[in-house]
């Protein structure tokens, strides 16, 4: 408690970017820009290649999972290192129900959320009472355990994974084109953004912010710290599971290797890079993490080292991220 220092907000990018951020914080320009963006993104598949659509679909998917993780890491200030596991919980729930039991895709979604809530409770309830660092290692372990479990069990197809997950049907159309999934993930991303904003501005969102800034004061004001944190953990997990279900439907085949530690790290990287807690920042982070590897396929294996060095430098010199939350200065575990 003694060493609580608040860093003054400094912006190395200069006043131009700063004033752009300011502009975006005002309602009218933000809505204008969002409308233009939406219109452009709806129009995009009509005039672009399959490759572009594939990348954009992947980007929307990343936006959803990053916003989900942002609820846990950004809003509530809890370090989560096994997010890919929750994404696997959703994907496998849908996969098993769909390919083994032949359940309609849309009906598997509630089950996927229920499974994620149960997993979130099992991990969160014991560890959220303790110091924040325990959560980091337990989630890291959980990620690995889920991977090992789906590899060892028969129902999950072992190391081979699951194949033959049914395509979802919407209004009598079987969704099997990349354009279909482009719009599906686009809608999901829009919903995720709206839900994130609504959560951020809600009573719950304020409680998260309060706990993140000063746990003891929040507790003294009558906020049940463990319970409120658990909400963040569960809501974030449900986001991940939902995205995982749609991922399973898009891929129609999933294997344990799709949910490795490195995916959790990339999602975390996007959230931290963009600016924890700031929704446009997180979206920016998701764009950076998905697009840079696509644009720079040549560097290949060096990519992760470069990302890691970038993360280190960013943390040392600009721990708030590229587009940080304005009032929230210290993110304390």
């Amino acid at each position, binding site marked *: 408690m003694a060493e609580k220092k608040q860093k003054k907000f400094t912006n190395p990018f200069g006043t131009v970017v700063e004033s752009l951020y300011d502009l975006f914080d005002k309602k009218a320009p933000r809505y204008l820009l969002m409308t233009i963006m939406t219109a452009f993104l709806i129009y995009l598949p009509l005039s672009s290649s399959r490759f572009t659509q594939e990348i954009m679909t992947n980007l929307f998917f990343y936006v959803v999972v990053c916003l989900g993780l942002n609820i846990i890491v950004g809003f509530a200030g809890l*370090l989560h290192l096994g997010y890919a596991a929750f994404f696997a919980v959703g994907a496998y729930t849908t996969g098993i129900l769909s390919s083994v039991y032949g359940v309609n895709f849309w009906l598997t979604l509630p089950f996927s959320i229920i499974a994620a809530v149960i997993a979130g409770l099992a991990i969160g309830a014991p560890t959220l009472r303790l110091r924040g660092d325990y959560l980091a290692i337990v989630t890291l372990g959980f990620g690995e355990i889920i991977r*090992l479990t789906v590899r060892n069990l028969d129902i999950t197809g072992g190391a081979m994974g699951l194949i033959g997950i049914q395509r979802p049907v919407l209004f009598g159309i079987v969704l099997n084109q990349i354009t279909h999934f482009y719009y599906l993930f686009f809608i999901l991303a829009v919903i995720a953004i709206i839900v994130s904003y609504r959560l951020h501005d809600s009573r719950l969102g304020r409680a998260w912010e309060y706990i993140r800034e000063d746990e003891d004061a929040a507790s003294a004001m009558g906020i049940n710290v463990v319970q409120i944190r658990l909400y963040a953990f569960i809501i974030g997990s449900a986001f991940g599971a939902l995205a995982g279900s749609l991922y399973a439907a898009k891929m129609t085949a999933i294997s344990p290797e799709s949910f490795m530690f490195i995916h959790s790290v990339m999602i975390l990287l996007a959230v931290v890079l963009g600016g924890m807690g700031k929704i446009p920042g997180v979206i920016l982070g998701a764009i950076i993490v998905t697009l840079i590897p696509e644009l720079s396929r040549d560097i290949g294996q060096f990519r992760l080292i470069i990302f890691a060095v970038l993360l*280190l430098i960013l943390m040392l010199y600009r721990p708030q991220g590229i587009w940080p939350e304005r009032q929230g200065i210290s993110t304390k575990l």
Partner: protein
Amino acid sequence: MTTWEIFLQQLFNGLLVGSFYGLVAIGYSMVYGIIKLLNFAHADIYMSGAFAGLIILGFLNPYIGNQWLGIIVALLLSMILVGLLGVAIQRVAYRPMLKAPRLSILITALAVSMILYNTVLLMTQGQYKPFTTGLTHESFYIGALRMTETRLVLLIAALALMLMLHLFITRTMYGKAMRAIALDRDTCQLMGINVYKIIAITFFVGSALAAAAGIMAGVYYGTVHFFMGFLIGLKAFTAAVIGGIGIIPGAMLGGLLLGLLEAFGTQIPFIGSSWRDVFTFVFLILFLIFKPNGLLGRMESERM
């Protein structure tokens, strides 16, 4: 084999693997005790230690061979090298962050871990490297227990390192300073202790022990690979929690206990070795629910 023989064999296996866990767990526990940081890079330091040992042994081989003499010299050299690596990491990535929000320092630790891991991955092309030694694998019996010279020496060496560390912590001024900083860093600074120097020494000792464990694991399993740190890191952390994080004898005890639990746990029907890692993790969760302060830990009330 009779039940008794299986029991003895598993007891020995558990102690040996557990002593590796213990050596790595000490590093987690020391760093956590002194700056309350969960050092994610520690598992990768263990892995780097194994590779440093392999490389040094390769250089030494033409001069002093790759039997015990060569291994011991390689062990000492790579302990020093990796210890210095730990100090360097501490200086670059952790020291500037000591006063920053806790989430930031955890993320720099993660970044360091990724850098080490991916560097070795690139250097080895992701392949398993044989850890070639000139040791014989002849086995002999002590009572009903079948054993090799290598395994016996490894166990004794691991226990000797733990004993040396214990003496260092309890009998020297540096050890005393470490324990004092763990209690109250600000007061130590006022008392004229060079806190940063002691933190650097802590990182040196912790990293050197992890390197030793890495080389021993290399000698024991016969191969090293870039991924070897990940699981043992998780398990060593579990060991540190079992013993009570921040308490060094606790880390040793936790490591040995976890090794034994794994060795006997996999003998239970229906669990088997493919579930071994899941078993460890379930144990971690149970400990966090029922005894979060660990076996040797005391209840701590947080000061405002």
